[in-house]
């Protein structure tokens, strides 16, 4: 699996990210790093605890990372969740969580596949 194929699989925009970050080495490095970021865990925990503020920050961070990496699909769903949480709309947020879960799983799976193929 190449990095482009990985982007296709997770619904990202490789052309965009390479246009911005300029270096394939950098993109690859940060893509691989994405799975080790604790923000998703924090988001889930905070939601479970009903800590809306903490959940907002976690969602916001995920959104930011996705934007940086042009993970378009996850960026979109996490962005929607971020806005709901920012507004303190717990009910609305709850409805948006499944989409984020799904996109996050998809993303992590694609990255794992890519990592395997380059032996990382």
């Amino acid at each position, binding site marked *: 699996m190449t990095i482009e194929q990985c982007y296709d699989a997770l619904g990202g925009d490789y052309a965009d990210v390479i246009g911005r*970050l300029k270096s394939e080495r950098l993109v690859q490095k*940060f893509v691989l*790093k*994405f799975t080790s*970021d604790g923000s998703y865990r924090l988001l889930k925990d905070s939601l479970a605890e009903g800590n809306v503020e903490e959940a907002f*920050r976690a969602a916001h961070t995920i959104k930011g990372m996705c934007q*940086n990496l042009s993970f378009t699909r996850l960026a979109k769903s996490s962005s929607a969740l971020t806005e709901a949480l920012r507004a303190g709309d717990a009910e609305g947020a709850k409805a948006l969580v499944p989409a984020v879960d799904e996109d996050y799983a998809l993303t992590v799976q694609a990255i794992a596949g890519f990592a395997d193929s380059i032996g990382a």
Partner: protein
Amino acid sequence: MQKLRHEKILIVDDSEMNRAILADMLSDEYDVTEAEDGEEALEVLKNKGAEFSLVLLDIVMPKKNGFDVLSEMNRTRLIEDLPVIMVSAETASAQIEKAYELGATDFIMRPFDASIVHRRVVNTIFLYAKQRKLLNVIEEQISEKEQNSSMMVDILSHIVEFRNGESGLHILHVRTITELLLRCLARKTDRYKLTEENISVISMASALHDIGKIGIDDKILNKPGRLTPEEFALMKEHSVIGANMLEGLSAHREAVLVRRAYEICRWHHERWDGKGYPDGLKGDEIPICAQIVALADVYDALTSVRVYKPPIPPEEAKRMIMEGQCGAFNPLILECLEEEFEQIKDAVSHGAGEKAARREIRRFADAALHSKAISASERTLRLLDYERMKYAFYAELTEEIQFEYKVDDNLLVFSSAGAKKLGVANEIVNPETNSRLKEQLGQDWFRQLRGFLRETSPDAPDCRYECELAIGGNLRWYSVIMRAIWTDDVSPSIESVIGKLVDVHDTHMAMSELKEKSIRDPLTGLLNREGLDEELSNKFVQFPERKYAVAVFDIDDFKSANDVYGHQFGDKVLREIAERLIHATRMHDLCARIGGDEFLIVFDYDMGDIRAIVARVFKTLCGAVDDFDLTVSMGVAEMTEPTERYEQLFHKADLALYVSKNSGKATYNFYDDSMETGSAG
């Protein structure tokens, strides 16, 4: 990897990945430090804020967010020196607006483009580095200015304080209020051309508003009760007296500062409605500087204690002024009083020292750097303009003769004060032919200038020396300071020479007097050992071809003269010897007292007969002082070979003296070789 720059950047973001992306982009060129939330960032900045050149700051973070960081940086004023670029996915314009309001320099939207981040970081750091440099320049200028004005204010405060019992603070207060009102007025209207320069000059000049009171009778000035109409009429004259004093400053009449001070002195008791004194000017016929100072004067007089009244509270004073109970003022200036009231109240009650200086520095920096729609080149021009005005201002006030010589045009330009002092035109073409200049600067001045041009180099463009010049007919010592301005080319050439002549006569005379004292024996005025050494080295180095002889002598039985007649008599004998010595020797001879009663003469004789000279000198030295039969024993050594050194001569003369003493004193001997072995032990 070797860093291209030394600048440090602080990246603040709660997401490690976001920090890593930024760090990766920048760490090749900058030292990057990371902080994972606002609290950590503030901790880093608190300890090492001054080390950083830039902060990249996320907004949404745990503990303290980006706005908290900005607020704290505002509180500590760090924001003024350390640029902050916000990096955030926030797109709400209110958030962005808030960041700018809190002093963020720039805003980078996520997702960001590596080259844009890089460009903005480089630009921001570069701009701030430039600003810091400019700020230093401006701070220097302002502290110079501050010194100048505060010295003046100081002097005047003391005069006025001394004369009319008013506190010297009045002058400081008037100055502060004047400045605040002027600044407010400048924001309201362009009508009065209130540039930073003008504001600064008027504020400075405001210190002089009451100098005319020096000419008012003490009894009237310090009268505790109300003045009679006659007394009041006399008191009113202080405005004209002050103006006349300033007009009498012929040398500085043209200086802007003096012109403003004149207007302020004369017209600070005029009224907007034309019912003031001395000239009954009306409305804007009254110069704006006088209008402002008038209000400042009234306000401070109301709120201060006077011999005839207690202080009135600020609010009350303001109300009285607004209601026209204390004169008639320009409505626009009354508006300024209203708007600046809190500031005025604060400044006048807390004093205007350090705080004002800091405010002023910031203001200059802001005016020079942040004014809207000013491009970099305009900014530079503005600073240049400021420099020119400042230079012209100081040149007008100083006693120095400043000049610039343009090499290609063979043109000499003097400062106006300099030209006046020399009695020449400001600009002189072909100055070498100008006879007036020759008369003032000496026949050789142009040759000296050309000499300097030949000797200077881009690495050593300066020269400084002292010389005596007959400027204005009086021969005085001047320090000449010159700098050659070289072009920036591959093969540099001299564009011009700038420089000045500073009258250092008094210092020079004091120094030479001190030096003269240090090389002379205080009792006899003869050279001491140090002086002798110095004079000798001059002589032997400068005129090695001349013929010298050294004589040493001491007073016979001086100890018994001291014992019998006392030390005062001893001193008298020493002085007498010195006098006889001076009398008997010639200008080029050196005479020194080298010990208690031991003296030395270096004869500088070219053609003369040294034996005849010594015989004459010896004869003059001997002769009774009161009851003491004064005689001396002397040894002399003449130079036999041109290479003979002073030390050798001295040694030989000493041997000859020994022989004289042993042969019954009151005699002299010339050295001959037999003495060397004979009696040296």
